C-alpha cells in the first residue's frame, strides 16, 4: 500500500556532537520529503537523558506516529520502548545504536565499534609507517563519557585495535560528559607523567581529541604526536589541514538517515526492507564510515560535498588547504 500521510518520528539521543541536528535530521527529512511528500516528520533530541527520551517516545505516540526511528540514549532502557511501540503496532527502527535485548523492526547504523577500531588501526598503521619503535613508549586512550553506551562501544573498538598492535596503552581515561577541558586536563597530566613516551593519542571524538591537542600545545610539545578523532567536525578537519590532528571519521550521516527513511516507508507500506545481515535478531544494514586523514581529506570531504572548501579554508587554513590541493 502506498503511504501518503503517515507520521514518522525521528528521535535522537544527545547534543554531544552536532551531527544529529546538522546532518542526520536534515538528511532524514529531505529523504522523507522525496519519498512521501504528505508525511509528517517529528524530531526530538533527548539531550542524553533516558527518561526524557521515554517521555518524547510516549509523546510522539500520542501524536500518532506510526513509525519511530530511535537512536537510543540508553540501549537497555530502549527495550521497553520498543515493546511498548510494537504492542501498538508501531514500527521501530533502531538507528545508530543497537537495541540488543528487544529486536526492533530494523537497524540502520554506522558501526560504532567499527569506528573505534578504525581510528585505532589508522593510528597504529601511521605509527608503524613512521617506524616508531613500540619500545620507546605507547599511546594514550581517551574514551567518551563513562555513562554513555555509544562511548562504551567505541572504547571496545579502540581496544580491539590497540590491544594487539604492539603499542602499549600508557593510560586510559573516560572523559566525563565528553568534556574537552577534562580531556585537556587529563592529557596535560599524562604529558608531565610520560613526557616523550607518548607516541600518539586515540581520542574517541573530535572534541576530546582537540582537548588533547591543546594539552600538547600548552605543554610546548612540538610536533604534536598523532591524535585521532571522530565525527569530522569542521574544527577537526581544520586541525587536520593544519597538521595538528592526525585523523577523524567522516560519517556522512545523510546516507544513514536516508536509508532509515527508506526503511521506514517500506515498513509502513507493508514491504520488508532488504537487510544485509542480522544483528541481535534484528535485520540490519550497517555502513562503514571512512577514516579521514590529510591524504584523503579532499576525496572524502570536499569531493563528496560534505563540506565545501570555503567552509574549511578560512584564512589561517588557506595555506594548508593549498598544500592538500583543496580550493582554488
Amino acid at each position, binding site marked *: 500500500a502506498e503511504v501518503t500521510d503517515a507520521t514518522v518520528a525521528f528521535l535522537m539521543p544527545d547534543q554531544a556532537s552536532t551531527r544529529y541536528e546538522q546532518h542526520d535530521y536534515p538528511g532524514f527529512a529531505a529523504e522523507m520529503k522525496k519519498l512521501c511528500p504528505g508525511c509528517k516528520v517529528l524530531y526530538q533530541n533527548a539531550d*542524553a537523558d*533516558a527518561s526524557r527520551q521515554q517521555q518524547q517516545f510516549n509523546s510522539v505516540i500520542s501524536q500518532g506516529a506510526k513509525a519511530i526511528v530511535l537512536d537510543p540514549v540508553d540501549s537497555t532502557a530502549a527495550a*521497553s520502548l520498543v515493546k511498548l511501540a510494537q504492542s501498538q503496532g508501531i514500527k521501530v527502527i533502531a538507528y545508530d545504536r543497537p537495541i540488543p535485548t*528487544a529486536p526492533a523492526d530494523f537497524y540502520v547504523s554506522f558501526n560504532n565499534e567499527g569506528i573505534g577500531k578504525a581510528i585505532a588501526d589508522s593510528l597504529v598503521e601511521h605509527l608503524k609507517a613512521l617506524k616508531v619503535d613500540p619500545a620507546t613508549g605507547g599511546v594514550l586512550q581517551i574514551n567518551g563519557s563513562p555513562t554513555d553506551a555509544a562511548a562504551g562501544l567505541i572504547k571496545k573498538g579502540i581496544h580491539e585495535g590497540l590491544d594487539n598492535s604492539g603499542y602499549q596503552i600508557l593510560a586510559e581515561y573516560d572523559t566525563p560528559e565528553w568534556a574537552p577541558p577534562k580531556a585537556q586536563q587529563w592529557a596535560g597530566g599524562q604529558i608531565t607523567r610520560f613526557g616523550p613516551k607518548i607516541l600518539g593519542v586515540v581520542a574517541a571524538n573530535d572534541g576530546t581529541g582537540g582537548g588533547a591537542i591543546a594539552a600538547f600545545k600548552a605543554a610546548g610539545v612540538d610536533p604534536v604526536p598523532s591524535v585521532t578523532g571522530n565525527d569530522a567536525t569542521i574544527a577537526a578537519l581544520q586541525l587536520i589541514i593544519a597538521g595538528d590532528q592526525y585523523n577523524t571519521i567522516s560519517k556522512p550521516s545523510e546516507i544513514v538517515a536516508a536509508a532509515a527513511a527508506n526503511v521506514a516507508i517500506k515498513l509502513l507500506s507493508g514491504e520488508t526492507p532488504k537487510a544485509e545481515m542480522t544483528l541481535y535478531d534484528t535485520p540490519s544494514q550497517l555502513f562503514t564510515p571512512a577514516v579521514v586523514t590529510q591524504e584523503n581529506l579532499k576525496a572524502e570531504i570536499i569531493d563528496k560535498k560534505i563540506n565545501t572548501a570555503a567552509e574549511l579554508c578560512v584564512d589561517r587554513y588557506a595555506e594548508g588547504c593549498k598544500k592538500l590541493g583543496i580550493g582554488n
Partner: protein
Amino acid sequence: MSRQVEQAAPVPPQLDRADVRVKHEAGLSGAIRAFFDRVRSGDLGSLPVIVGLVIIWTVFASINPIFLSSSNLVNLLFDSSTVGVIALGIVCVLMVGEIDLSVGSISGFASALVGTLWVNQGWPVALAILAAIAVGGFIGALYALLFNRLGMPSFVSTLAGLLAVLGLQLYILGSTGSINLPYGSNLVNFGQLLVMPKIVSFGLAAVPGIVMLITGLRTVARRRAANLSAPSTGGLVTRAVAITIVLELIVFYLNQARGIPWMFGLFVGLVIAMHYALTRTKWGRSMSAVGGNREAARRAGINVRLIYSSAFVLCSMLAAFGGVLSAARLASASQQAGTGDVNLNAIAAAVIGGTSLFGGRGSAYSALLGIIVIQSIASGLTLLDLSSSLRYMITGAVLAIAVIVDSLARRSRVSHGRA
C-alpha cells in the same frame, strides 16, 4: 480574666475575637470577601503557582491541542512521579535549611542496586527495593553524621557524596553497563502500565472532600466548645464540594485515556503523608523550627541533631525510592540513571513550588506542583518540533514565566507587611 474587665466593649463572645483592631468576616459571603482581601494582599499559598501552571497549559494547548489530550496527561503523571518523589525528599532537607546535591546519584545508585540484586543476584524484588532504600538511608545518615559531628556544610558533604555515589553506581554496574528489568514483571508494570480501575479512582477522588468535611466539622465543634471562633459550616461544605467536583472532573477526564497511574497515586499518597507529618506532628513542627531558627529550637529543648538526621535520612531514602521508581519506569538500571538534570530538577521542583532554600518555609505540596510545572514544560515542548537550542531557550523562558506569578504575589505580600 483581667482582659474582660478592662475592655469597655461588651464582653467579647470568643477568646480570639477580643481584639477590636481585627476585621473578621463571617459566613459564606464573608469567606469570599476574605478570600479577595487575601488575593489583594498577596497571601495566596500555592494559588499563584497554579495560575502559572494554567497559563502554561493554555499556551501549550493552544499551540498543540494534543498537549491536553488525556493520554498525554497520563504520560505526564507517570513522568512526574519519579522525580516528584525525589523532590519530596528535597523538601525535607530544605525545610531545615540544608541541601542534598546527591539525590540524583543516590537515585541512580538505588536503581543500579535493584537491578543487580534482583535481576542479577536473584533476590526477591521487594527485598531488593528495601535494600536499596536502606542503603539510601545509610548514605543520608552519613551526611547527618558529617553535619552534626563535624559541622561540615551539607553543600560540601553532599557534593562529595554526589561524586562518590556516582562512582559506586558505575562500579556495581561496571561489568554489565546496564541491566534490563524484566518486561512484564510487577515492578515494571507498575512503572509503565498499571492504572487505577475507574471505580477506585473516582472513589479516591472523593476522599479529600470527605476527610476535609469530617475533620472540618469536628474542629468547628471543638472550637465552638472551647469558646474560639470557628469557620462557617457553609464555607466548609462549599469548599469540600468544590474540591470534590474538581477532582472528580480531573479523574473523569483522565479516565478517558488509560486512567490514573498507580505510581502517581503512590506519589500523591506520599505527598499527603509528608504534608500531614510536616504540619500536624511534633516532628514537623520541630523541622520548621529548626529551619527557621536553629538556636531557638535548641533552646526549646528540641533534639536538633536528631531533626537534622531525620531530614537527611528521609531525603536520601526518598531519593533511593525515586530511583527505584525511575528504574521501573525505564525498565532498566543504567549508568546514566540519575545523572543529567535529575538533581537540578528535583531541587527546582521544590523551589518552584514555593519551598524556601533558606529553611523554615515550605510544604510537601510544593514538590507536587513544582514537578508538574517542570514536566509540563518538558512535555509541552516535545509536542513542538524544536531544535535543541530553541528548546533550551523556551524552557528557560517558560520556567521564568511560571514563577513570575508567584514572585509577584510574594512581593505584594511583602509590601503588605507580611514577610
